[in-house]
Structure formats: C-alpha cells, structure tokens
C-alpha cells in the first residue's frame, strides 16, 4: 500500500499539515518497500488561486491508495482525487507522521471528503 501524507516536514517526526492544498510537503510511504519519500510542495505559496486542485494533481501523479491529512481536500481537489479511487482519511492535523500512521492502522482516523 502507498500512503500519502500532507506534512510540514520531511520525516516521521514531521507534523501533519491540516491544510490540503497549501501543505508544504507531500510525503509518500511505500509499505512494501518500507520507504518514505518527500515531495516539496512549497512553490504552492506562490499560487494565488486553485491551490487545492494543483496539490491534488501532484498526488494524482504519485498514485497512492491512501491519503492522510487534516481538514481534508475541498470539492474541486476531491473531484480529481476521486479519479484514482483514493481512500481519504482526515482529522490527523497536528499529529506527527508516525502518530497519524499508527492512528490510521488502528482505524482511528475518520474518513475525509464530502461522502464521509
């Protein structure tokens, strides 16, 4: 399983950014390979409008099966993510990456997005 996180840092101690569109980093954890890679998203600061869809596009290209985030994506971003049948978990804002991953493993995170 490949799991994407919105985060304000690049390792397991990074804090989950509650914001979806304007997250500083997207972290991708590949459970099979036990490998964590980070994607720098900070150029989003320069984007005036449509931050959500742009970040969604990036996640689309990473092709994860699961997204763990805080507030959850907005309507336009979610429409993009729906195309890859992503399972979205929200409510992890403020946790560390490790805490959020454990919470997800223990089914403690609520489903995010409109159809939650």
């Amino acid at each position, binding site marked *: 399983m490949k799991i994407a996180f919105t985060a304000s840092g690049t390792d397991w101690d990074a804090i989950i950014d509650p914001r979806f569109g304007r997250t500083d980093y997207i972290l991708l954890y590949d459970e099979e390979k036990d490998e964590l890679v980070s994607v720098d998203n900070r150029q989003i600061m320069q984007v005036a409008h*449509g931050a959500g869809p742009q970040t969604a596009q990036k996640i689309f290209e990473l092709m994860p099966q699961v997204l763990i985030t805080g507030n959850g994506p907005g309507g336009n971003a979610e429409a993009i993510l729906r195309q890859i049948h992503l399972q979205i978990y*929200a409510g992890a804002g403020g946790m560390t990456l490790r805490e959020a991953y454990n919470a997800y493993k223990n089914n403690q995170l609520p489903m995010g997005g409109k159809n939650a």
Partner: protein
Amino acid sequence: MKEIVVISGKGGTGKTSLSASLSYVAANEVVMADCDVDAADLHLILKPENQYSEDFYSGFKAEINPEYCQSCGACFSVCRFEAILRKDDRYEVKYLDCEGCGYCQHVCLAEAINLREQKVGLCHIADARFGCKLVHAELGIGADNSGKLVAKVKRDANRVAKENSKDYILVDGSPGIGCPVISSLSGAAYAVLVTEPSLSGLEDLKRVWELSARFRIACGCVINKADVNPEITAMIKDILVEKDIELLSEIPYDEDFPRAITKGLCLMELDQAKWEPYIKQIWEKIR
C-alpha cells in the same frame, strides 16, 4: 495556538464589528489577522501603527517586447479577454484587461512575450490600538484577494503569535465561500459564523456551514439583528440544532453598530455596560 476564524456567508452582518470587539476583550491573548482584504475595514477601528511592511506580489500580466515582436497577430487572435490591442501593425497589452493566463506567451513563436509578476499590495505587521498585534494587507486598485494572500497573512500571524507567546489567532475572514474563505478556514480550529435573519443571511449561513463542515471545523453562530425577523431567526435556530452548531449569542438590532464604526470605535468603547455581556459571553464560548 488556536486559530479562530470569524466568517459570514453574507456581507454586512456585523462580522468585523464583532471581531473588533473580541479583540478588545481578548487583547492580551490574541493576534488579529484581517483576511477580509477586498474590503478591509478592521483597521478603521484598530488604527494600527505598522511596524513592518513588505511588498506583496501576485498574479501575472503579459508584456510584449516590441524589439522581438514580428507582428504576426497570434496573441491577438487567441486572447479570450480581448486584452491585446492592435495599433496598425503593432500589438500592445491592455494592462487592465490582461488576466495573466499566458496563452499569448504560449503561441508567440518570436518569444516576444513575458509574463511579469505583479506587485499588488502591501502586507503589514502592526501594533493595534487595544494593545494586540494586527497582521493585515492593503491591496492596490483592481487587485483582488486570494488564497495566497490569506495564507500569507495567516502565516505571518502565526509567527507573530509565537514570538509574542499569544495563545490565539483571531482571523477576520471574508464573506462568501470562495478561495480566500477556504484559505482562511484551512488550519483553523473553530469558525464563528455571523449571520442575520434575512433570507440571504439564512441561505448563506447554510452554505458557509457546509464549507466549514467539509473541512471538519467546529462552528458556532452569532445571530445579529435577531429581532428584526423573528420568523427567520427561528428557522436559523432550527438549523443550528439540526447541524449541531453552537448558538453563541443572539444580538438584537442596535444602531450602536453603525454609530461605533462611524466614530472609529468598537462596540465596547461606545457602551461597555451594554456590550460587555454579549462580547464576553462569545469569547468565553469560543476560546
């Protein structure tokens, strides 16, 4: 650090009057962030003295370099905004009409077109009258608010709150449910929805609640001018119960609102005995 956003689906409900009064009662604990940048008016009451200002750049405008331009007219024919002006055989960008989409640059084989990022305003960190800090922005004519600007104002407010050991950021958000509002909600812990008993007040409350709920943000509601239409006030209250939104306060119609703004004061300064119970009650519930 707790970020509290004051928003109203509909404009003119008294959102900024309440924000200003909240900053008065909570001055020792908050950093204020004015994210209602299109029609910023918090500064009229808080009379900030700017301590630090920086230029804010956002959006692009096309520029044609006449040295390279081959006068082929490709830019003219693709521009959806009719922002390219043809003068005989020469082409110019109509500055105010250009949306900065970049289509002209894309089709220009002579590479004569540049997109230049625009300086659209200023961001300030200021000392406000009641003793709290205010982070706010000032936009030039024709510039519009954006998710980018709101994110910047909130980022600065977060930093200022940390530096000054303040526990709360109180964000004066903008009306509506667009990009700037989404940006002001994201990362917030609580949203105060200010409404009034009119049909648009009611409908706009519903949609702004939907937006807040989508982002999993707890909400409370202030019904301002509650006595002008008891029927709709009752409808609003039904919605609050149905959606599990906390009723923070019901405030009767009062001309102190325009009176205070006209004098550049907050409600508390105009009549402390009358307004303190309302404002303190709201603050205690949301903090």
